Structures are given as structure tokens and as C-alpha cells.
């Protein structure tokens, strides 16, 4: 009889092979990446088209040249117009002013330049020294964190589908029955499937997060990878547990919906009880903390579902 | 892939036509084309005088389809499954008609048991009842005796004969020659997607100079034994 670890390794390789053979699985796993990068390209494209020119709108009566010289050092030009507020509203200029009023859309650095200039005319007021060159990625609102969490959540959902689908399909096409005849305990069959699904899932999730980091900067990248992996491992285990003793032809979608709801419940638990969020897999997506506890819990979830599989299918 | 090639036949009302041939001969493809489930690349199909290309719904109104696999919703009972199908087919007074069909096929005792719990024979009766719910003049049966025991096969074949006596046109496919020759008025022997020979049993036996249909088939497909 083959030693157990080598039997699990061989069964895992066979499962990975079958997973990769299903073009649908690969397409599913690449999809979130294509989706996020596609969305980013569209978003940036729209912004690139709509972004105002490097101009500050001033009234046509404006005669003070000192501001023009100050802005010119930052490659910003003055644009005389009859309606500075309108020019900013119509995205023709990044900022504008009219007497003591400064008009902006949001809080661009140009605002600080104009505001600091105007305040310098009133030395009794508090003053501004704009620090424009030190704008850094981490100053952007948590877009990277939000999107990386979304992508990891999508992978977690696939984890449920793949975890459940592998068992269901193998039961329907007879592969599972053939493997039940092998001289290995039944838990090895479940374990190999969980490992295969997890490896394939994480093998796509990690490069996806690397790509996101290269495109929008993901804060705490390695923590996000850990929490993402914990969510995927847990979801595969939940999918496996949900389908345990059934095939695809009887009530698959109901069991799948149940498994997806369990995944959602984990997420909800983290939202409702904030103390759980950093430690509970799936709920911990987006957390900056070390991912070890969620990973350990994910392994426990997996152990639970693997032994549940053995319980319902016999030794 | 060429599944059916230059195949042509005509079946009259009140006639049972057996489409015989080995697995992969093209029988199911032929029946699926007749049932409007597949589109032929070329050729013409008329069902009860209606061209399937011009009026597929008209064709479907006139035929009952009994597929090889039961295709019954496992969580519904036979009564529910047939009743819902009757509504889709536009059958008037569907409840009454459903009960009639279940009675006629002897399926009333298990009419309220979920289809998933029925035996193959029971499912076959339910499928027959479903196929006849709108009283079609043409009945297409794909391997209807597959997986049935002796009594089940006898019942189904008896039912087929009965339908022909009622004036329906019946086309039945099978790879078991001896079975269909009992009920079919005429047979079409199909191999490799082509019609090898067609006629009454005695005509085919004479043509092949054989004593049994199996022997006749092999002789017509492979040529007489040396």
C-alpha cells in the first residue's frame, strides 16, 4: 500500500489536472483579473478624458502677475475668463478664483497653491506652505484595499463553487466511486480535492493581487494575500462540506446556495461583531492585521469538512 | 461529423415503423431531427403533412416525443409533472386529461410519489403519458424498452401496438431487432447513417436470404457470410 502522503499527493495532482482541463475553471479564475483591470482601464480612460487642463481660471480683470509666476513653476497656467466658477464646474480648469473666493472640484493641489497665495496677502491669517511633490500612493483613499477585498471575495465565491463542483461532478461521472475502491482512507480523497482546489484558486488569486498592487497599489499587500488565501481555503472547505454526500443531479443548486450563504454568514459575522473581523476567515478580507489566525481557522474548517466527508461516506 | 446521410422514409397513419440499427447508426439523430430537436443541413421532413422547417410549432403540436432518457423532474410527482406539461402544450381541461392518461397507463397508484423515487418501468409509463397528453397523431419513441424488464417491455410494446390501432403514426427506434419485429408493420435498417434496407419483415428476410432479422441485418450491412 502506498504511503498516505504520497497517495494524497498523487490524488491531488490528478485533481489539479482535471480542474485545469476544464477550460471553464481557468476562465473563471482569470475573470476577476480581467474584470478589475478592464474596469480600471475604463475608469482611468474616462478620467483621462474628463480631467481638467493644468489651468487656474482668473477673472479677465486680473492684473497681478505674481500668482502667474508662482503657478508657472508648477507648469500651471492662468486662464482669464469671465466666469471662473463656471470654468471649474465645466472641468476647463482645476481651480479658479474671483476676489476672495477660490473655486475647486474636490481638493486638487492647485487649490493649495492659489489659497496659499491669497492668504499670503493677509499676513495676519494662518498661512499655507503647499507640499506638492510628496503626494504618495498611500494618500489615496482605500481604493486598493476595497478592490483587492472585492477580488478576494469573488475568489472566495469561486472557492465554494469549485469545492462543491469537484465532488458533485466526480460523483456523477463515477470518478469518486472508483477512488473509493482505492486502498486509502476516504478522508484522503476529500483532502486531495480540497488541496487541489485551494492550490488552483490561490495560484490565480496571488498573481491577481500582485497585478492590483502594480496597478492601483494594494496597502499591506502580503497581509491581503494571506487573508485572501484564508478566505479561499475556507470557501473550498465549505463547498466540500455542503456537497459531501450528494451529486450534481440532486439538489445541487440548493446545496450550493446553502454553502454560499454560509460564506456570506462568515462575512456578516465580521461586520456585525467587529472583534471577529481580524480573525475569522472571509470576514478578515481587507484587514491589515497578520493573517495567521484566519489561516489557522481555515485549516480547521478544512479538517472539519474533510472528516465530515469521511463520516458521511464511510471509512 | 456526418450522422445521417440521404436517409428517406415515409410512414402512414395507423402504421408502426421500426427504425433498427446498431448503436451509433444514426437512429436517435433521425428521431431528433423529426422531433425538431436538431436541424438537418439539407433535406425535407414532413410530419402529418407539415414541413418542420416552415412550421416547427405546427409539427410539435402533432407529435409526442418519448426520449431514451426519462427526463422527469425528480422533485415533482408524475401528476404535477404531466399537469404542468399539459398547460405548456395548451391542453384543454388539463387536470381531467392528466388523470385520464395516468389511469390509461396504470400510473395512478404512484401519481403522487416524487419522480425521483420511481423505478425505470414506472418512469417509462409516466413519460408515455406525458408524450400523449395532447393526443398527437404522431408518436416518436427512442429506445423505449431500454432498461426495462420482460413485463415492462411487453407493456410498452403492447401500448405501441394499441396506439397504432387507434390510428396514430408510430416510429420506434431500437437496437434489439427481435423485439421490434413483433410490433412494427415495416422496418428500416440503418447503419452508418444510411438506410440499408426497408420493408416488411418477410421482405427483408427474403432480400437477405436469412432466417432471422439479426442475420438479415448483418447480411445486408456486411454482405452474406462466405
Amino acid at each position, binding site marked *: 500500500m502506498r504511503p498516505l502522503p504520497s497517495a494524497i499527493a498523487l490524488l491531488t495532482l490528478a485533481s489539479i489536472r482535471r480542474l485545469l482541463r476544464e477550460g471553464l475553471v481557468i476562465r473563471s479564475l482569470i475573470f476577476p483579473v480581467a474584470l478589475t483591470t478592464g474596469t480600471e482601464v475604463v475608469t482611468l480612460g*474616462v478620467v483621462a478624458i474628463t480631467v481638467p487642463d493644468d489651468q487656474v481660471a482668473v477673472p479677465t480683470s486680473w492684473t497681478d502677475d505674481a500668482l502667474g509666476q508662482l503657478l508657472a513653476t508648477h507648469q500651471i497656467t492662468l486662464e482669464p475668463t469671465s466666469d471662473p466658477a463656471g470654468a471649474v464646474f465645466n472641468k476647463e480648469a482645476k481651480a479658479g478664483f474671483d476676489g476672495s473666493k477660490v473655486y475647486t472640484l474636490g481638493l486638487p493641489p492647485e487649490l493649495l497653491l492659489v489659497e496659499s497665495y491669497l492668504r499670503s496677502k493677509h499676513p495676519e491669517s494662518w498661512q499655507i506652505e503647499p507640499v506638492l511633490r510628496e503626494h504618495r500612493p498611500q494618500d489615496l483613499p*482605500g481604493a486598493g484595499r476595497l478592490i483587492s477585498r472585492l477580488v478576494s471575495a469573488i475568489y472566495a465565491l469561486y472557492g465554494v463553487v469549485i469545492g462543491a463542483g469537484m465532488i458533485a461532478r466526480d460523483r456523477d461521472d463515477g470518478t469518486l466511486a472508483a477512488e473509493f475502491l482505492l486502498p486509502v482512507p476516504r478522508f484522503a480523497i476529500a483532502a486531495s480535492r480540497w488541496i487541489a482546489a485551494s492550490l488552483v484558486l490561490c495560484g490565480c488569486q496571488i498573481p491577481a493581487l500582485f497585478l492590483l498592487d502594480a496597478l492601483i497599489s494594494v496597502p499591506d499587500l502580503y497581509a491581503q494575500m494571506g487573508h485572501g488565501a484564508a478566505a479561499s481555503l475556507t470557501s473550498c472547505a465549505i463547498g466540500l462540506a455542503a456537497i459531501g454526500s450528494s451529486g450534481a443531479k440532486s*439538489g445541487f443548486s440548493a446545496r450550493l446556495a446553502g454553502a454560499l450563504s454560509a460564506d456570506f454568514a462568515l462575512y456578516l459575522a465580521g461586520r456585525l461583531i467587529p472583534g471577529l473581523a481580524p480573525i475569522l476567515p472571509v470576514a478578515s478580507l481587507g484587514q491589515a492585521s497578520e493573517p495567521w489566525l484566519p489561516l489557522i481557522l481555515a485549516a480547521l474548517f478544512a479538517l472539519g469538512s474533510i472528516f465530515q466527508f469521511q463520516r458521511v461516506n464511510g471509512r | 461529423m456526418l450522422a445521417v446521410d440521404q436517409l428517406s422514409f415515409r410512414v402512414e397513419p395507423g402504421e408502426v415503423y421500426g427504425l433498427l440499427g446498431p448503436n451509433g447508426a444514426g437512429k436517435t439523430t433521425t428521431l431528433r431531427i423529426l422531433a425538431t430537436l436538431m436541424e438537418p443541413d439539407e433535406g425535407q421532413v414532413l410530419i402529418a403533412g407539415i414541413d418542420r422547417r416552415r412550421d416547427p410549432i405546427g409539427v410539435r403540436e402533432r407529435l409526442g416525443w418519448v426520449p431514451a432518457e426519462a427526463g422527469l423532474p425528480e422533485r415533482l410527482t408524475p401528476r404535477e409533472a404531466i399537469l404542468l406539461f399539459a398547460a405548456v402544450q395548451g391542453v384543454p381541461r388539463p387536470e381531467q386529461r392528466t388523470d385520464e392518461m395516468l389511469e390509461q397507463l396504470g400510473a395512478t397508484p404512484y401519481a403522487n410519489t416524487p419522480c425521483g423515487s420511481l423505478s425505470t418501468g414506472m418512469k417509462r409509463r409516466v413519460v408515455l403519458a406525458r408524450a400523449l397528453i395532447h393526443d398527437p397523431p404522431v408518436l416518436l419513441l427512442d429506445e423505449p424498452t431500454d432498461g426495462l424488464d420482460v413485463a415492462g417491455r411487453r407493456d410498452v410494446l403492447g401500448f405501441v401496438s394499441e396506439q397504432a390501432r387507434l390510428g396514430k403514426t408510430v416510429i420506434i427506434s431500437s437496437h434489439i431487432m427481435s423485439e421490434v419485429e413483433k410490433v412494427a408493420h415495416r422496418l428500416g435498417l440503418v447503419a452508418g447513417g444510411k438506410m440499408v434496407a426497408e420493408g416488411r419483415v418477410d421482405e427483408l428476410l427474403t432480400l437477405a436470404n436469412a432466417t432471422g432479422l439479426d442475420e438479415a441485418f448483418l447480411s445486408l450491412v456486411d454482405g452474406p457470410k462466405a
Partner: protein
Amino acid sequence: MRLRPTRVVAVARRDLAMETAGRKGIFLPLILVGLLIPAATVSTDSLFDFPKPKVRLSGDIPAAIQELPNTEITNSTTSHIHFTHNENGVLVLHARWIPDEVRTLLDKDAPAPVQVIDVGKEAQLPKRSLLLALIASSVLSGAVAESLPGERSRRTLETLLAAAISHGELVAGKWLAWAGLGAMAATVAALLSMVLGRQSPGPWLLALPFVPACTVALGMFLVRTSNDLIGGSAVAIRVLPALLTVSGVIAWMLGGIDPTLGALLPLGGALLAAGGLWEGWTPVILSVLSTGTTAAVLLALTSRDIGGFQESSSYFPERLRVLVGATAVGMAIWWMPVAGPALWSAAGNSVFASGLSTASAQWAAAMFFLIAAFGMSAQTSDIPKALSWRSPTISTWLPTLLVIPALHHLLATPPLWTFDASLRLFNATAPQLGVAALVGVLAQELFFRGWVLTRAGPIVGIVSSTLVLFPTQPIAGLLVSSLLAWLALHSRSVWPSMFAHFAAMFAIPLSPLGSTALALGGLALSLFYHSKDKQVSAPSAF
């Protein structure tokens, strides 16, 4: 196309009965109710809480400012605002950005000499009805998968296709069942939230049912020819929520320019209109028209294809498909990390672009090339063979060593090397070379010289590699690709080209000794494998 209402309703009733029959039938209604009721009734405003970034402060921070919520005291190198006083004792803010609350607080005691006015409209947040629309639509993805691929795999769809109804009636009936359920559930939940005073009535109510209606139509379209429940479920679960979200985000962005533009985007427009994002009837009506029309078109396309008559066949020869596919995939993999920062710059944030991680970009590109190579070769029966992963003959190593200097010369031509280009574009330093780059070379070779070359021959292999890796220097790129392809073809192995590529890029720049050591190492490796087995040399990992 015939559409008889009685038949459509009959099909819908049948679908609903099949899903809700038996004990398991309780699942879907239970999930719908379990998710929609809390979403409709829970009394919180934080359904869409986007956390504000904390303001990092340093220096002589005034006491009042320190008490502001959402602030954090830090050191001067990382702070947003560093407070000092000038020689006249006037407060000076060394600032990268000043939130309104800081400005208002500082101006409190004296009349402000400068008044800052944001002319942009207040960023509107969608109301909770958006969440109701999302839930009602997403929960139905499983039912859509059951309705078409599920029925097809259980052979029950066949009897419907052979029934006396048109395919249009069949599709419309199935759509009615699930779109109707989703629309009804969302509307009832919305009414409940209005009764409880959680949301006030408005034109958004009109757009609400159109979101599940179009989502179901889209789901049916996506799985229209699938005959496998698991595959169908994966498609529906994968694509539907994602498309809903993405179209919503895009509609939001377009709506920022003009609500009419956002509303016209199918699905996303209706989603945001249902979320009450835009004032007035016009955006709602436009969104309903656009989303409704899209749903109708999708249903028409689904009913055209639902018979599954046409076998999928390609009009293009295999080599052309590999060329186009490998070039498109390769371009996306290789150039996205450069295109991303470039787009950021175009969008006006070049400072942000320069801070993006080049190392992550290298890792991502390398890993996706590996996924592409393994994913494609896994479709064949012999992965090592599909990737040319086998020991070359000893005689191959002499040409390999000869090719390296030529490759080095060509690869040194700027900007042949993509990441060299990106490094210079965005002023990043280059400590990232190393493991990521090594994996990158390995991955490129496995993809272009392994899979593409083996699958589609030298011309496709060379052309796609040139187009993807060296579009700005086609002549030099063609030479590099040809040399590497020649090595791979000559040796019938991907190892020599992999080795030559790596050596030319890294070893020679490092030192001539390094390249010699690498060459000898390669030779020794080859001898080792050669002595073990001439034919079978695939490592057990494959």
C-alpha cells in the same frame, strides 16, 4: 415569433414549481427573505460606508484640531499637515491637503480672508433600494443555472423543446419565472422599507424591477447553450454579480459627468436609478428604456440559440487563432503593468504612477504567463510535451552558448525590455531584478517557446513573441524571437532558449565569469538528465 401569454405563463409556472417542490424547494425563498428583510428593515445608514481617510497631523498642532475626529498624530515625514509658526507667530500649515473641517475650525475665530468653495455637487450615495436590487438579482443566479443548464443536463429541457411552443415562448416563460420572482421580491422589500420609513418613495421604484429583469435575461443568455449544471452555475455566479457591480460603477462614473449618460448604460443605469442616485424622472425613464431594451435583445438572442442546433465551429484556422489569442493574451499580461501607470499619468496622477510597485508588476506578469502556459497545455494529454519540457541533446549547448552574446547585444537595445521602459518612464529604481525577473524569463519562454511554438509552429511563435515583447523595436525583436525559436526548435526543448534568455539578460551584465559559470551549470544539468534518460525527462511535478 409566436408569444402566447398562456403558454408563457405555463412555462413560468412549471419552472417555479420545479424549483420550489419538495423540502429542498424552501431554500431559495428562505435565502431571498433572509437577505432582503434585514436589508430592507435594518436601521442603519452605514450600508454604504466608505471610510474617510484619516488626516495625519504633526508639529505644533492646535488643541482644537487635535480634538477633531478622524485625525491621527504622526511624524513630519508621513503627515498630511505639519503645523509650525512663522517669525510673527502666525500659524503655518505645511500641507499636502487640507480637509474642510480643519479649514473651518482655523477660520472660526477670525473672518476668513479666503473662502474655498467646492463647485462639484455633493457626492451622492445610492439609497438602500440599490442593495435590494443587488440582492434580488444576485440570489437568482443559481436558479437561472438550474433553469437552463440544469434542465438540459437532466434531459427535461428536451421535452419542452419538443413541446408545441415556440422557443420564444419557452425563453420568455423561464425569464418570467425568475425575473418576476426577483422583481416581486425587490419591490415588496422596497415597499416594506418605505412603510418602516427607511426610504422615501420616488421614481426609483419604477427602475427597481428592471434590475432583476435584465440580470435574469443576461444570465439566461450567458448559459443558453450550456449543458452542464456546474459549469452553468459557475458562469452565472461568476459573471452576473460582477457585471452588475461593474456596470453600476461605470454608470456611476458616467453619471458624474451627466446623469443621462449614466442612465443610458444598460443594467448599471437601472441599478443606480433603482438606488435613487439621480433626481427626477428623466434618468429613471432613460435607464428603464435602455435596460429593458437590452433585456429584450438578450432574450431574443437566447431564444435563437436555445435549441443548441449549431455546433460551435471556428471560421479561422488554428494557427491564426493561436496567433491572435497568444498576442492578445500576451499583450494584456505583459503591457498591463506599463499601461496602468501610463493611464494614471494620463488621468493626471503621475506622482501616484511613479509609486506603483514594479516588483509586483514583474511577479504578476511572470505568474500570468505561467498560468497561461500551464492552463493551455493542460488541455492536452501530455503537459511536458505541449510545453517542450524535455532534456535537450548535449550538442545543443554549443549553439546556445554562441547565441547568448548576440541576444545580449539585441536585448540591451532600449526599450526592448518592457520593464526597463517602465522603470525609466516612472523613475523607479531597479532593485526588483532578481527572482521575479528570473521567473519572468522562465514564464515567457514556457509560453512563447514552449506552448505557442509547439502548438502553432515557428512563424506564429516568432511573430506573437515579437508583437508582445518588442512592439517598439520590431527588427531587433524579430531577431531575438527568431534566435530563441531556433534554439527551441533545434533542440526540441524549451531549456536552451530559457537558459540563453536568462544568461543574456542577467549573467553577462553581471560578469563574464558569471555567464561562464551559468553555461557550465547548464551543460552539467543537461549531462545529468541526459545520462538518466534520453526520452523521459519530465520532473515528477508534471
